[in-house]
């Protein structure tokens, strides 16, 4: 009987020890005084870059502990951590998704000058896109317009002229057609809202997301764009039928695997593509439609959480990880096209010099991307319910109406 009692006592002690071992709300600071820093990352290489950037903050006197998840999970995980009082001190944020977590972020306007951060050093469009309700919530590190990324090797193989600044939608359609053969396709048309908006801007001059973040998917211009986009698969047959997938960037996956020759995404993808693909990658602005060659600029930055226990240290760290040295480092690693204008040239490493005209043309023709509080929902609904529409099983206008109802 004695051993029995001993066991039960031991079990109780163990349970109590476990439950008391928890420090529930730490204000984003670890026991050793290190500030926690939350960021998304897609690979070890990317994480390594962030760690090196984090070391810059350590040089300035604030040690950072980096936590990463994939971009896809980052937004839900950040909310989950906030609910347990575990929000990190420094938080990565993408311009299109600022409204999602704006309640977690501390307005920075009063502190920027003290930290030596000057808005004039940054590209104005990305600087502005990190403002919500008149407050600057984050300092940008990178930005870029949506561009056409293409498999230049495939173009050459089939003798198709390479896209260059000034090309038109007719050129695009002809190229896509010529590139579609032997079970491979010209273009990847996926139900991803980020990828449709630039087409809508170029073809019709309409943005489905209005000035104040109001979503209007049923306006005639956007409906017409969607019809054209869907027809790339069903009528023109230059893009493969799409599938239901949890892949966040099916277009990039298709490009890397060689199954499609062109896709629309941001320059931040270029390095991943070059790293993973066995062909030469090219960059071109969106082809010009009725409304010209237009694109939208999105980017990312870092903010400080409202719950951070040591905002002064966080501010110093923020200045370091968004500072000129950090920007240069990110650019040289190819992780980001810097938001700091003075460091942008560092991005065009020898392999990327070919991308320069395409990217610069795209930047000059781009407008800041508009965000909406419901952007995440819109994105998810588009991906999930857009699949049968893209494949011609469901009607475009019915789809847009039903999504419209759910996002406003």
């Amino acid at each position, binding site marked *: 009987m004695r051993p*029995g009692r001993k*066991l*039960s006592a031991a079990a109780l002690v163990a349970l109590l020890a476990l439950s008391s071992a928890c420090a529930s709300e730490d204000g984003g600071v670890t026991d050793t005084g290190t500030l926690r820093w939350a960021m998304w990352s897609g690979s070890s290489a990317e994480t390594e870059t962030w760690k090196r950037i984090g070391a810059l903050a350590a040089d300035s006197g604030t040690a950072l502990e980096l936590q990463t998840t994939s971009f896809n999970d980052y937004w839900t995980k950040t909310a989950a951590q906030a609910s347990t009082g575990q929000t990190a001190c420094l938080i990565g944020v993408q311009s299109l998704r600022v409204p999602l977590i704006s309640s977690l972020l501390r307005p920075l306007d009063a502190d920027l000058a003290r930290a030596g951060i000057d808005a004039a050093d940054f590209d104005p469009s990305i600087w502005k896109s990190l403002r919500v309700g008149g407050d600057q919530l984050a300092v940008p590190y990178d930005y870029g317009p949506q561009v056409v990324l293409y498999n230049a090797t495939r173009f050459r193989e089939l003798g198709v002229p390479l896209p260059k600044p000034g090309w038109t939608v007719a050129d695009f359609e002809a190229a896509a057609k010529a590139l579609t053969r032997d079970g491979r396709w010209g273009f990847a048309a996926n139900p991803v809202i980020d990828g449709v908006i630039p087409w809508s801007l170029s073809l019709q001059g309409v943005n489905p997301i209005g000035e104040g973040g109001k979503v209007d998917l049923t306006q005639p211009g956007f409906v017409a764009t969607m019809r054209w986009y869907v027809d790339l698969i069903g009528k023109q047959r230059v893009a493969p*039928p799409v599938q*239901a*997938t*949890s892949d966040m960037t099916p277009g990039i996956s298709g490009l890397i695997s060689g199954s499609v020759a062109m896709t629309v995404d941001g320059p931040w993808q270029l390095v991943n593509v070059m790293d993973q693909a066995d062909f030469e990658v090219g960059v071109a602005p969106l082809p010009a439609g009725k409304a010209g060659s237009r694109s939208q600029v999105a980017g990312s930055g870092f903010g400080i959480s409202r719950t951070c226990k040591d905002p002064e240290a966080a501010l110093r760290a923020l200045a370091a990880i968004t500072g000129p040295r950090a920007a240069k480092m990110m650019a040289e690693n190819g992780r980001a096209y810097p938001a700091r204008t003075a460091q942008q040239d560092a991005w065009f490493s020898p392999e990327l010099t070919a991308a320069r005209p395409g990217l610069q043309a795209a930047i000059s023709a781009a407008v800041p991307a508009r965000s909406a509080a419901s952007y995440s929902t819109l994105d998810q609904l588009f991906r*999930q319910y857009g699949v049968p529409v893209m494949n011609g099983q469901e009607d475009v206008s019915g789809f847009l109406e039903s999504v419209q109802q759910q996002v406003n």
Partner: protein
Amino acid sequence: MSMTTIRVPKPRGDGRAALGFLAPSTAGFLLFTLIPLAGSVIISMFAWPVLGNREFVGLENFTDLVTSPIFGRVVLNTVVFVVLYVPANLVVSLGLAVWISTRIRWRGLYRLLFFLPAVTPLISVALVWRLLFQPGGLLDETFRGLFGVAAPNVLGDTRWAMAALIVMSVWQGFGYNMLVFSAGLNAIPDSIKEAAHIDGAGPLRRFWSVTLPMLSPSMFFAMIMTLITAFQVFVQPYVLTAGGPGAATETLVLHLYRRGFEQFDLGVAAAIGWILFMIIMTVTAVQFVGQKRWVHYDG
């Protein structure tokens, strides 16, 4: 099941020793099963966001769910999955178990290989199948090679996606039941088989009137467990189709995950959990009532 084996406890006894032996298990059981179970009833009656204030809403979470068209579709999807998956699983696992138990060499090896997917992480399995089903994947290329046309776009077509999910799930899931049936077959005394043989019964007849009844307890057990796990299907649609195309493969648990942990509406998620539990309990109860007709426990 075997409540009859519990003896009436006598007041005199080993109370203190029992306390010691039970403490670790029961403490954990209380903290991690009973308290959360009670908690989930309470949570399901709240609007419980992950950030911000929670608010008592009574049965609103349930009524909202029941009246929403998406949720109706989700329940229907789950039921369709269960209705097709469970019989397919049982037929395949029983068929293979019986086949292997005939005079086949290296039985252990066959069983082991057929069992492999059951112990492979589901996510790995779902990934391979996604690769197979993708345009330009093995299925598509085989179609092109054999018939000169592309295979149906399985994961992009609302008519095919559920079928793909079921095929993959059966491939992955029948291994356990196959082993359960193998064990059941091994337990049939040779004397009975021989008796039937001497009576001149043919193989089919022997299967129907000897093997099947003798296996019925295993079948009952396998059916209950398979039903329960089938209602809980999550990883397959999460990885293979993300619930799409449209809502074609959105199942109850996937919906629970989305509502609770992507949209952070924990009250609604708890309510979905309870609805799932009630469905499972009802179906299981019906099975237990119905078993008397076909399950033979006498040997």
